[in-house]
């Protein structure tokens, strides 16, 4: 039933509209946004092609593309990472949406309903996942259609399924200056929550209802598209790039909130709102919902392929062709290769030139016509870029007779791959119209060979000492008493490398302030391998890790690691890993075994009684579109057996977004809330933010609930990630960087 719009709301809407048009005509509040310019002047930047996309579709209260409380069929740009916070009538929703593929998106939501007073909580907090798939694109007459599953695996408080169609129309320009506007019309059919008001039919009778306070977490497919279904719909009108007006008819009766409890009063099915695009990434909205409540929505969208600051790296030295300087017979002789002093001099020249590029020469092998450089890179994220710099240095330093370049990146003393190039190709292709593709076509990538006995090592590289002193933050989430807690302080990190492949490292932490210590105590049917976090958070000065690690190469394609000591805040012990990863293969296989002892809560040198063996066999596969699939099977920290599946999208520029879940032989009851371990993770490269070369990232792994089943020990220096980055697929994907 729909009531008439109240007088106060009409005044509000009227004044909002006046304000909006006054604002849109005169001032634009906020930074410039990307927009389509009508009839731009040829020769102006506006007329030239642009890579920056127009502002993305707006989000609804659930963090998906949509209207206000209802979804639309729109998809965000591929790879989009959207975060939003919406609030109305005491209900807040924090949403994260990732557009995993052009036609598929996934969302995670943390929501709080104040004064629900059900299931034993006054404020009810819940987490949920959504997934949306576009069924077909918009055509000339045909609307775009999307199917959505909302809160499909949680405790299901927001559970709903829907089909929704959206069609876009151009509207006339409001003034001479602005371009045409856009009208989006949306119509959908919803089940579950979205079929609870104004139902027009029913499929399969009574829908199995969700049980508040149950462990949840499993796919609730027995509910999907069952029970009553109801239509919903609405419009979004964008008179210009900055503003939009929204109106919708909601099919959500809010039964739990308004009938079972008294969170707010639902007096109307109509919702209205106005939104403002503040910048290309930020959007604000204000709304009047259900005839009784005001609400707002803050939206922040990032796209991995649109860096905050475009990466600018100082130019490397140009390749000077030998034809310009090696003009006499004497230049081309190989006599130098018989002279040790001359070779040592060359080694020092190469080391000096590499240092200017931020790289470290570990060893060089000089033959008459062939040279191999083994180098360490702690500056560039892209191995292709580092290799390009090494190639330039070699071309400008080595005698003219050297024609074949072998370039081998090392990590922890181990050669990861060898890029083989001909010097004449390097000279011929630097300014080729297709320089990057042309070089890739003539370069070969192979397994890193054994270091030849004739190689000259850099003097004074070992032993090496490094330290870092910097602040840290350690957040903790989803405690029903206080959903967000954080500690901060300073870390002192130090490492000592006595010889290639060996490292002794440790981190000392001093907490300065924070409230993680006040978190919930553990209640677990399993050994408390992770749920005791708050007991570990009681101490100010702690030893984060202290270990000795050795890395080596066992032979062709086989890498090894052994680590002993304190690995992380909760566990220490011994760990060994082997990884098989051919340079040109998408597949990698690994095994890891750890014998660990749980650390004492004070995180010094003492241990608790809990000891266990944990280990896994792992398979990694590089799929298309930069996706990496990982399967691990084995024994977990609490002694449970099972397997983990993870899927990550790792962008070329270092962005990564992924999700994982673990099923083990622990029952849902013993596991507790959530039934099994799952979560998502993301990592944002620092160079993407700062526009300067960096190998660092910041990111987060978010688990809806942290329990003890399906947990692994965090051992520093696991092999796969670093090795893959220097292998063929990665070098190929990064080829644009070689000449930069």
């Amino acid at each position, binding site marked *: 039933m729909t009531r008439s719009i109240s007088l106060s709301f009409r005044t509000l809407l009227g004044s909002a509209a006046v304000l909006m048009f006054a604002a849109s005509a005169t001032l634009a509040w906020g930074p410039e946004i990307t927009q389509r310019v009508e009839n731009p002047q040829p020769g102006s*930047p506006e007329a030239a092609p642009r*890579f920056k*996309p127009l502002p993305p579709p707006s989000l609804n209260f659930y963090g998906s593309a949509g209207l206000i409380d209802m979804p639309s069929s729109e998809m965000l740009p591929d790879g989009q990472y959207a975060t939003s916070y919406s609030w109305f009538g005491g209900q807040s929703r924090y949403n994260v949406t990732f557009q995993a593929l052009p036609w598929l998106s996934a969302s995670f939501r943390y929501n709080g309903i104040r004064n629900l007073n059900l299931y034993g909580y006054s404020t009810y907090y819940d987490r949920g996942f959504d997934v949306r798939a576009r069924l077909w694109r918009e055509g000339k007459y045909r609307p775009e259609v999307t199917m959505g599953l909302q809160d499909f695996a949680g405790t299901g408080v927001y559970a709903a399924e829907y089909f929704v169609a959206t069609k876009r129309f151009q509207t006339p320009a409001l003034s001479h200056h602005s371009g045409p506007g856009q009208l989006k019309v949306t119509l959908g059919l919803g089940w579950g929550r979205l079929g609870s008001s104004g139902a027009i039919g029913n499929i399969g009778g009574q829908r199995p209802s969700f049980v508040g306070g149950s462990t949840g977490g499993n796919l609730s497919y027995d509910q999907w598209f069952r029970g009553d279904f109801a239509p919903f719909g609405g419009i979004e009108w964008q008179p210009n790039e900055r503003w939009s007006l929204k109106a919708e008819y909601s099919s959500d009766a809010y039964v739990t909130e308004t009938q079972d409890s008294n969170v707010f009063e639902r007096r109307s099915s109509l919702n209205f709102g106005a939104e403002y695009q503040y910048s290309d990434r930020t959007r604000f909205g204000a709304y009047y919902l259900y005839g009784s409540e005001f609400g707002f929505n803050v939206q922040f969208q990032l796209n991995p392929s649109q860096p905050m*600051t475009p990466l600018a790296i100082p130019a490397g030295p140009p390749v*000077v062709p030998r034809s310009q300087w090696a003009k006499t017979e004497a230049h081309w002789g190989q006599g130098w290769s018989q002279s040790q002093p001359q070779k040592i001099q060359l080694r020092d020249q190469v080391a000096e030139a590499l240092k200017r590029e931020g790289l470290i020469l570990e060893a060089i092998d000089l033959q008459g016509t062939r040279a191999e450089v083994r180098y360490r890179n702690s500056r560039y994220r892209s191995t292709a870029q580092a290799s390009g710099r090494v190639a330039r240095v070699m071309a400008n330093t080595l005698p003219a007779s050297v024609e074949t370049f072998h370039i081998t990146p090392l990590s922890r003393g181990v050669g990861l791959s060898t890029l083989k190039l001909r010097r004449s190709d390097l000279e011929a292709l630097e*300014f080729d*119209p297709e320089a990057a593709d042309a070089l890739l076509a003539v370069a070969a990538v192979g397994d890193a060979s054994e270091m030849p006995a004739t190689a000259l090592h850099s003097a004074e590289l070992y032993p090496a000492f*490094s330290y870092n002193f910097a602040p840290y933050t350690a957040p903790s989430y989803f405690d029903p008493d206080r959903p967000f807690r954080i500690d901060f302080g300073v870390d002192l990190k130090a490492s000592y490398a006595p010889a290639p492949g060996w490292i002794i490292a440790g981190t000392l932490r001093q907490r300065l302030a924070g409230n993680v210590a006040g978190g919930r105590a553990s209640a677990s049917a399993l050994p408390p391998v992770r749920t005791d976090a708050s007991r570990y958070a009681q101490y100010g000065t702690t030893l984060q890790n202290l270990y000795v690690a050795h890395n080596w190469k066992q032979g062709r394609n086989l890498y090894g690691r052994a680590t002993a000591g304190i690995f992380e805040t909760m566990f220490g012990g011994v760990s060994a890993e082997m990884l098989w990863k051919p340079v040109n293969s998408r597949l990698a296989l690994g095994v890891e075994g750890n014998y660990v002892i749980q650390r004492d809560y004070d995180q010094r040198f003492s241990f608790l009684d809990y000891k266990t063996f944990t280990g896994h066999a792992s398979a990694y596969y590089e799929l298309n579109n930069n996706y990496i699939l990982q399967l691990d099977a084995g024994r977990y920290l609490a002694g449970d057996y099972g397997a983990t599946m993870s899927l990550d999208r790792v962008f*070329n520029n270092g962005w990564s977004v992924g999700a994982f879940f673990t099923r083990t032989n622990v029952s849902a009851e013993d596991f507790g809330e959530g039934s099994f371990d799952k979560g998502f993770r993301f990592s944002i490269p620092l160079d993407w933010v700062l526009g300067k070369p960096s190998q660092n990232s910041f990111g987060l792994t978010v688990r809806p609930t942290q329990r003890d089943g399906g947990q692994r020990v965090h051992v520093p220096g696991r092999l796969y990630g670093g090795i893959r980055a220097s292998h063929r697929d990665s070098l190929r*994907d990064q080829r644009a960087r070689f000449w930069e």
Partner: protein
Amino acid sequence: MIHPLRLRFGAALLVALTGLLSACSKGPDGPTTQVQLSQAIREAIQERRAPKTDPVRATRAMLLELGNPHIEIVVENLDFLGYLALVLTRSDDQPGTITQWNGGDGTALILRNGMLIASRGLGGNLLSADVPARGQQPGPGRGGQRSYQIRSGDNIAQRLTFACSLQDLGPARLEIVERSYNTRHLQEYCETGSLQNDPQGRIQGETHVIINDYWVDSRGGEVWQSRQWAGPEIGYLRIRNLTN
């Protein structure tokens, strides 16, 4: 009254902020995220504090004293003025003479017969380009297809192809740093023919236009001045040849 707990929290925050600004690192491992972040913050503060100085304008006397050839560039988008010195002259299998010009700050431009074929040290670099060079003739030698490879945000090369027409707009007299030259004004008018490699299909259906202008010495030999497009991120560059 301020709650003592809140006071303690504030003091700790102050210590942490000081820690952020005093973060440091040493050794071959390289800096951690926090150290790099704090370095960036410190640099930003220094930059903001530094007095704004007008860039030094080159005079002919300065150029004569320096000796080696220079170009002056203006990045229109950033209103940035800089001087780059000639570091390399060479040729390859393609027609034309390549010149590389480097600035003190790691910026580099590479020209083929005076036409931009690559940029380095800028965000969204022009990786490589196919330009209409003909022999040693300065500036564009013909109309027709032209293509650019531009690095976009996800470290991939985006290819942009244009169909160009070349026009001679007649003689023009130029004055560049106390010297005057008789030139002809050549203009390339280029429209997007096809846009490949666009992952989100967002440029589809739009025609884009770029215009490159060259002022070429009437007797041949040099491009004395030009305004050239260097990609969506960098935009248009104005280049003046300061060769003595």
